[in-house]
């Protein structure tokens, strides 16, 4: 396949079309506006629907409707826009409808800024909206992965009848890299997926399919919750994905996801030149979190360092996975600032007990140790 040069946002949008998405509902917001911009041009070319809704709330409820009718559908936004969508996301999860939701994160809280952040990890993985529900959350770290994971997300959403979130950030969305776009999916393949549950009209041959998330009888609501619980357990056992980088002999384990993981990789390369045995575990699915791998790796290392563009959110899942076996340290930048390779390298040197004379002063950022052993 030919390589093309594309912005992350555009590659994601094109990939959605190739995956068979024909219904996009959204509302512009930096740093993801290239997604609706691109789809406003492309959707009419493939006979799809692009609709700029009057608000994020409207857009997610349009997704709810399109998904209920059996369509491949997507919405995208950034951080505060996702906050507005959360009620709808909870409804979609309760109604067990497949869809793809993209969050290209920016700095918060509040209106925040427009520079990249990873401060919506909790929102994405711990619910955000009300009730016990889970999103399957993918964290791409390159333009290629933005394209590939968006493409797969539609299949996974259909397979589990569950909303899937692509969690990127402003840097990933705005940057360009070479990318091989996936093949166009055959329409018939998408159509043959079992969607007998969809609200497509009964033609008086079956009882109507109704999507209603109101259960006034607590026994019935518990039944729904138990069914969801079983589904989430199945997803946790089958869909965990993670990448390991130089972990084979590592005695210092870094954990980072998305674009931050790439900054960490470069810092690890530098540390390795000094003889420090650092390695990286990069969760690709944030939920389900790669608990078993984190636990297994924690047995071979002296300490763990998580690096995030947040005050420390991923670190909580790391701590839950490894218990109190080793100290878990944190380094992060917040508010739209990006950790530098040099700063991460410096942190690695500190925890490896090496003096790094290149950096006499600590770079800005948040540092702490989560679980003192």
């Amino acid at each position: 396949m030919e390589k093309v040069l594309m912005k992350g946002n555009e590659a994601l949008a094109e990939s959605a079309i190739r995956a068979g998405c024909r219904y996009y509902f959204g509302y512009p917001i930096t740093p993801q506006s290239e997604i609706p911009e691109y789809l406003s041009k492309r959707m009419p070319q493939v006979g799809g629907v692009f609709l700029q809704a009057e608000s994020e709330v409207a857009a997610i409820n349009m997704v709810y409707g399109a998904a209920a009718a059996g369509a491949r559908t997507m919405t995208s936004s950034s951080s505060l826009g996702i906050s507005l969508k959360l009620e709808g996301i909870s409804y979609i999860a309760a109604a067990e409808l497949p869809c793809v939701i993209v969050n290209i994160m920016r700095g918060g809280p509040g209106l925040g800024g427009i520079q990249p952040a990873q401060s919506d990890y909790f929102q994405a993985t711990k619910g955000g909206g009300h009730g016990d529900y889970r999103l399957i959350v993918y964290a791409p770290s390159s333009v290629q992965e933005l394209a590939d994971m968006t493409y797969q997300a539609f299949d996974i959403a259909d397979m589990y009848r569950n909303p899937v979130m692509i969690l990127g950030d402003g840097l990933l969305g705005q940057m360009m890299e070479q990318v091989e776009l996936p093949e166009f999916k055959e329409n018939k393949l998408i159509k043959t997926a079992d969607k007998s549950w969809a609200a497509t009209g009964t033609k008086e041959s079956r009882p109507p399919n109704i999507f209603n998330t109101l259960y006034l009888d607590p026994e019935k609501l518990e039944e729904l919750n138990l069914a969801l619980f079983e589904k989430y357990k199945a997803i946790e056992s089958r869909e965990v994905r993670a990448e390991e980088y130089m972990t084979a002999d590592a005695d210092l384990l870094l954990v980072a996801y998305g674009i931050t993981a790439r900054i960490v990789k470069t810092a690890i390369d530098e540390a390795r030149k000094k003889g420090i045995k650092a390695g990286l575990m990069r969760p690709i699915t944030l939920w389900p979190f790669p608990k078993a791998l984190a636990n297994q790796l924690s047995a071979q290392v002296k300490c763990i360092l998580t690096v995030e563009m947040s005050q420390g959110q991923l670190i909580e899942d790391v701590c839950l996975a490894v218990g109190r076996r080793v100290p878990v340290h944190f380094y992060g930048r917040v508010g739209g600032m990006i950790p530098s390779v040099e700063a991460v390298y410096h942190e690695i040197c500190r925890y490896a007990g090496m003096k790094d004379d290149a950096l006499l002063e600590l770079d800005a950022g948040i540092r702490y140790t989560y679980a003192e052993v």
Partner: protein
Amino acid sequence: MDQRVVISGFGGQGIMSMAQLIVYAGMMDGKNVSWVPSYGPEMRGGTAYCNLVVSDMKIGSPVVTKPNTLIVMNLPSLIKFEKSLVPNGLLLMNSSIISQRPARNDIRPYGIKINDLAVELGNLRTANMIMLGAYVELTKAVSDDSVFASIKKVLGGAKKELVSLNIDAFKLGAKSVHAMCAKI
């Protein structure tokens, strides 16, 4: 080969498109490439800068905090980024509007009067292509043919008539960097 480049100047000087041509050409040469723009509530005349990487290896951080090549199109950019250049790094300056010398003496600075050359060529807006020619000549980071193909790809549509002008500007930059713009 691992080119980690920062290009900086005023908005409107063609920073982003120049950087885009380099990574496009790099991709055609089979390299790994990344391009990160500065984005924000900015406007024409404000500061614009771009991080790019062209590498034989898989690219880790696409954010360039320690460039090995720095291209500055105006004085504020020189002041802002000179410190970040690695020792022995390459500095390319637009000496049409930067009269100041770089403060460091452990780098390889080149001054090139891109604005003057562009005016001679008949279009001030080709200044970025002249700088691009100088950069490619000095680093051989990407092949000339790939740059020409990239220019055709980018300008091939509505601005077709600008293709040869831009290629001429590129060649002028490549030629001039040795002839008139000796190392400062």
